[in-house]
């Protein structure tokens, strides 16, 4: 063999090896379609319903006004817009031909029955950590429901993320399917809470900052993130700090109630909390028990005193706006305050937060009524209040709440939120 042909052979081997590796990495077989069982164990269905509730499946897999679990909700990501899929047992458009192994592969590896890669907006990174029993119960519950014919809405992903096999590289980097193991030195309640938070509940999906590839930053689990313009606050150190949560408050909050010293869930947390309210109380208490045990990372925040003299004119405008737009429900003597014992605005987490995001988002979007559920309800003010008015109102209420730490980024945050809403 000549030197030249040796080189050629070596190059060929590299190409073949690379091709085979890429193929093995990016190709997954279809799993044979099956006929679904017709009979179900009612106890198992009840357990499965709870797993599906704990996993917030319906929060993403039901669009507003759409059929339960039939998909179609648009999820805006930095990489394009995704639409959730139909997970009712419709044979043609749902999971009506999926076997349990196909379902389990989707939950643990993010692969659809036909072998295509699912996008990680579907939190298989977390679901992969669930027990076999929970996944099996959830499967039985899902396939026992009424099938809805609802074809998938095509995704609008940007290049290159519209090429699904590339997700395999993402999985290589970020999918580590270690099961959640109980710690023997912790209580059963704590371990149950950890399992729900880190498994089905996938709290970190929103409450952890994301890296450039849209994966949760390692080492910063539950340290806080931003989702749909809302701040998903850090869940570390909730039991300490200047405004500690009690177990009772956190359990109430997680179950969509209005609680003293903090308020009530709004934004993307509202549907999550409405789901948690349907779980057994003991499960929510376990979640609270685990979350309250998480310690704040060592204080790195240098507290710079940025005390500024509030602008008198802006404060007067803010007070006038509060009187005209808010006082009917939020003034000390307002009827709405006595009906559900809602705290004064100066007690709410939104007005104590470092970022004005959640206060502004709540004012702009309100809290929509849920048909068939009691309040609380708040009208949206995005159309009635101008940017200047929002700023004056926020500055006024912040001054009432945290006079030593005024929000300095109000104007830019309002601008950003308006842009995002378009």
């Amino acid at each position, binding site marked *: 063999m000549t030197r030249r042909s040796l080189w050629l052979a070596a190059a060929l081997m590299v190409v073949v090896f690379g091709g085979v590796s890429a193929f093995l990495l990016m190709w997954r077989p279809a799993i044979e379609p099956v006929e679904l069982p017709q009979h179900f164990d009612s106890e198992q269905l009840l357990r499965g319903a709870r797993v599906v509730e704990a996993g917030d499946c319906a929060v993403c897999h039901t669009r*507003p*006004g759409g059929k339960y679990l039939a998909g179609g909700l648009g999820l805006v990501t930095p990489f394009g817009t995704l639409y959730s899929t139909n997970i009712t047992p419709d044979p043609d458009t749902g999971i009506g031909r999926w076997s349990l192994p196909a379902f389990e592969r989707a939950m643990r590896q993010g692969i659809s029955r036909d072998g295509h890669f699912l996008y990680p907006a579907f939190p298989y990174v977390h679901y992969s950590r669930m027990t076999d029993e929970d996944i099996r119960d959830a499967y039985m519950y899902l396939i026992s429901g009424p099938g809805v014919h609802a074809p998938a809405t095509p995704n609008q992903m940007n290049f290159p993320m519209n090429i699904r096999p590339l997700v395999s590289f993402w999985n290589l980097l970020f999918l580590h399917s270690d099961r959640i193991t109980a710690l023997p030195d912790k209580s059963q309640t704590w371990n149950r809470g950890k399992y729900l938070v880190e498994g089905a509940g996938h709290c970190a999906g929103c409450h952890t900052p994301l890296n450039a590839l849209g994966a949760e930053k390692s080492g910063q689990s539950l340290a806080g993130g931003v989702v749909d313009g809302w701040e998903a606050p850090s869940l570390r150190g909730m039991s300490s700090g200047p405004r500690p949560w009690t177990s009772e408050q956190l359990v109430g909050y997680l179950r969509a109630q209005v609680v003293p010293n903090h308020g009530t869930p709004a934004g993307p947390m509202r549907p999550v909390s409405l789901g948690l309210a349907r779980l057994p109380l003991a499960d929510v208490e376990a979640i609270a028990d685990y979350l309250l045990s998480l310690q704040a990372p060592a204080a790195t925040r240098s507290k710079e005193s940025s005390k500024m003299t509030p602008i008198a004119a802006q404060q007067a*405008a803010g007070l*006038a*706006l509060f*009187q*005209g*737009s808010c006082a*009917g*429900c939020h003034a000390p003597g307002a009827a*709405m305050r006595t009906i559900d014992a809602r705290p004064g605005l100066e007690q709410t987490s939104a007005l104590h937060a470092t970022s004005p995001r959640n206060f502004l988002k709540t004012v702009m979007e309100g809290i*929509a*009524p849920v*048909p068939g559920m009691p309040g609380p*309800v*708040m*009208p949206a*003010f995005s*159309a*009635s*209040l*101008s940017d*200047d*008015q929002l700023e004056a109102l926020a500055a006024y209420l912040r001054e009432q709440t945290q006079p030593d730490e005024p929000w300095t980024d109000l104007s830019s945050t309002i601008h950003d939120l308006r842009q995002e809403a378009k």
Partner: protein
Amino acid sequence: MTTTTLHVNGSAHTLDIDPDMPLLYALRNHLGLNGAKYGCGLGQCGACTVLLDDKPVFSCLTPCSGMEGRKIRTVESLGSAEQPGPLQQAFIDTQAAQCGYCIAGMIMRAQALLEQEPHPGEEAILAHMAPNLCRCGTHLRILEAIRHVSKDGVKHAG
């Protein structure tokens, strides 16, 4: 008291009022536009709904301050008893009012939808109209009136 200029139904009105006066009060008590009604005063019933820059707002919770340069429209802008606009005519045709207290708000909220989306689907109509309540229970007729107009579309009324 301070001077505030409101641009209502195409004309400017300069009023000497408190800046925190709700827009509803100014419309009714100072401009004699009695279409929008005071219902709950808490933004929970929608009887006071008017359009602000083409979007439906609760005028009972909207202070008159900050209205400079913003366009306010009330039900009076859509037509008169003699010459009702398309949406008003549809409400008459379907007899959508019983006591009528909520109707001006209903019409204005529906108007905003039809201007933005002339042929809304059933789900869009239901979702859009959800904030406005009718105590008499004529919701089915109100929805029917909106469907009538959505078949033809409604022209943008000034």
